[in-house]
């Protein structure tokens, strides 16, 4: 054993971390961080692009734009063979299909950032839609909206409590609860679809599915929810806590953030968004067939993953989730418009999801 202890460094060298020995001196070096803070507009743009890379939204956004521009050009050149820009496609399909999946993608994505999954999404969606329809038909749609939100949030919070209190992995807990709520949908409704008819007045129609020629009200809702969601997730301190807990729960805990409470918050937001999507679906289709919404669970997770949300937690963005959903939906739409054989559309969509996920994984490494 050597018995000499090494002398502390007396001169400041080019360390990764340098600290002056003297208690009073403050490091003075030729170049500091403040020197590299961007000042001009150009620098600021370059700076923000550099620190947006590899965080999910930017790269897939570029791909989405490319696909979209391609579709628009094809729609302009051959409006009969590829009627992408036909009002019945824009208003009838695109502006209604994207918002629902995007809201569900945001729901699943926020929960994934917090490090959890809810595989009962589809079941919750179906049950909340049935609650909305039933309550609306009995005592008016205002109550229906409130009841659906209550049911969606309630179901999600129960899941959250099970996961947080028992520490059972959310995969298992929510999978089981998903079966339960599908069964519950049949129990409260029977196997015939719940039908929204008498309660659907003009106000309800305009509010949730209003037709403005080339777009629908759902798109407006997506815009509102997107902005609010962005402010919450990326600019609010609670959003910051969601990232912290999903990224490293131990670190969050050490700084006295309560991971359980933050996860419950994420589950609650998840439930609210799912219920809202349920209302949009029910008002559009005027009905809800129990047991028919299970597929939405994995579609929502796929939208979030395509949009750059990490399956391991701590990473993702609202814009990415919206783009992920939009990409899946317009490709689905484009395949049908291009008259791809009906048997294989799912095959293509599945392939695209996998390719996008691999692409995002590669881009993740480029983050700085």
């Amino acid at each position, binding site marked *: *054993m*050597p*018995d000499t*202890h*090494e002398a*502390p*460094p007396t001169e400041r*060298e*080019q*360390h*990764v*971390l*340098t*600290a*002056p*020995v*003297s*208690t009073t001196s*403050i*490091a003075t*070096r030729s170049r*500091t*961080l*403040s020197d*590299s*803070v961007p000042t001009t507009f150009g620098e600021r743009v370059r*700076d923000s692009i*550099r*620190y947006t890379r590899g965080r999910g939204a930017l790269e897939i956004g570029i791909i989405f734009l490319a696909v979209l521009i391609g579709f628009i050009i094809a729609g302009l050149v051959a409006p009969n063979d590829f009627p992408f820009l036909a009002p019945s496609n824009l208003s009838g399909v695109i502006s209604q299909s994207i918002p629902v999946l995007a809201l569900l993608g945001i729901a699943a994505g926020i929960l994934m950032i917090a490090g959890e999954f809810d595989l009962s999404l589809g079941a919750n969606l179906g049950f909340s839609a049935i609650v909305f329809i039933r309550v609306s038909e009995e005592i008016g749609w205002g109550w229906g909206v409130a009841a659906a939100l209550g049911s969606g949030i309630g179901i999600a919070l129960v899941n959250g409590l099970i996961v947080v209190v028992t520490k059972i992995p959310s995969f298992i807990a929510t999978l089981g609860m998903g079966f339960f709520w599908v069964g519950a949908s049949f129990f409260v409704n029977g196997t015939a679809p719940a039908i929204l008819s008498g309660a659907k007045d003009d106000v309800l129609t305009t509010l949730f599915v209003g037709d403005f020629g080339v777009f629908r009200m759902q798109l407006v809702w997506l815009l509102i929810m997107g902005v609010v969601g962005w*402010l919450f997730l990326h*600019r*609010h*301190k*609670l959003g*910051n*806590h969601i*990232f*912290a807990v*999903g*990224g*490293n729960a*131990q*670190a*969050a*805990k*050490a*700084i*006295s*953030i309560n991971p359980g409470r933050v996860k419950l918050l994420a589950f609650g937001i998840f439930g609210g968004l799912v219920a809202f999507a349920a209302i949009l679906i029910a008002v559009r289709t005027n009905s809800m067939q129990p047991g028919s919404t299970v597929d939405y669970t994995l579609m929502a997770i796929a939208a979030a993953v395509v949009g750059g949300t*990490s399956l391991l937690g*701590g*990473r993702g963005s609202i814009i990415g989730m919206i783009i992920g959903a939009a990409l899946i939906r317009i490709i689905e739409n484009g395949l049908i418009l291009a008259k791809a054989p009906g048997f294989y559309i799912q095959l293509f969509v599945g392939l695209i999801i996998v390719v996008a996920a691999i692409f995002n994984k590669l881009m993740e490494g480029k*983050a*700085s």
Partner: protein
Amino acid sequence: MTETTAITEELLRVEGVTKRYGANTVLDDVSFTIGRNEVVGLLGDNGAGKSTLVKIMSGVVPMTQGAYFWEGTRYDGIDRQKTEELGVETIFQDSALVPQMSITRNIFMGREITNPLGLMKMREMDRITTEILDTVVTIEGIKSAKQLVGSLSGGQAQAVAIARAVHFKRSLLILDEPTSALAVRATEALLAYLRQLKGEGVSSVLVTHNLHHAYEVCDRHIVMNHGRKILDVRREETSVEELTAAVVEGAVGVERFRAGTF
């Protein structure tokens, strides 16, 4: 056993701390004091109870028995919220920061600067972060406060964690194996920095395997063995050899060392 000499001003004192997990006693009747302006080394082999002790000091884990005093006042049912208020900051090995978040967001995690609606003032937080990184600790190779912590080296990340603790004027810094992720020169700088902090009124507890690092920088050493405190000695009164004997062979090792048979 060597009794410690008087500590000028008492900061944290624990008395009779015992921790059991079921039938398994991890800590057995441990008492010590950490004074203001002190750097204390907490040493011991794997399984000696160091990390449990750290978790109890920082309030993450409750003790089974024992008392917690801060500046002479006793606190019962201490938790992380309370130690946070008191000014204890723990930098856990590899887990102090969130790699997917930017430096700014890590530094202000849980202490965000917000408007009344709770929305964060990102510009202000970025500006302060830049300032901290330029003045409090100087870190080579960091380009922007917006950089992800995951893109930093182990040493840079460690420095960010320390910068956070210092910026928020913590009174007691507990570092759990801070040097394990660091290159040699970064380690030297870190140790030097702990001494500087002492001058600024911040006490540190350095938990480490590396006796040389500890001996180099600590004013006092506490050695744990199988959940018990076996040595609590000022730096002048010991040597690396004695500490080695204590860590490797426990109380027997200390006796043998003093008898000259180690």
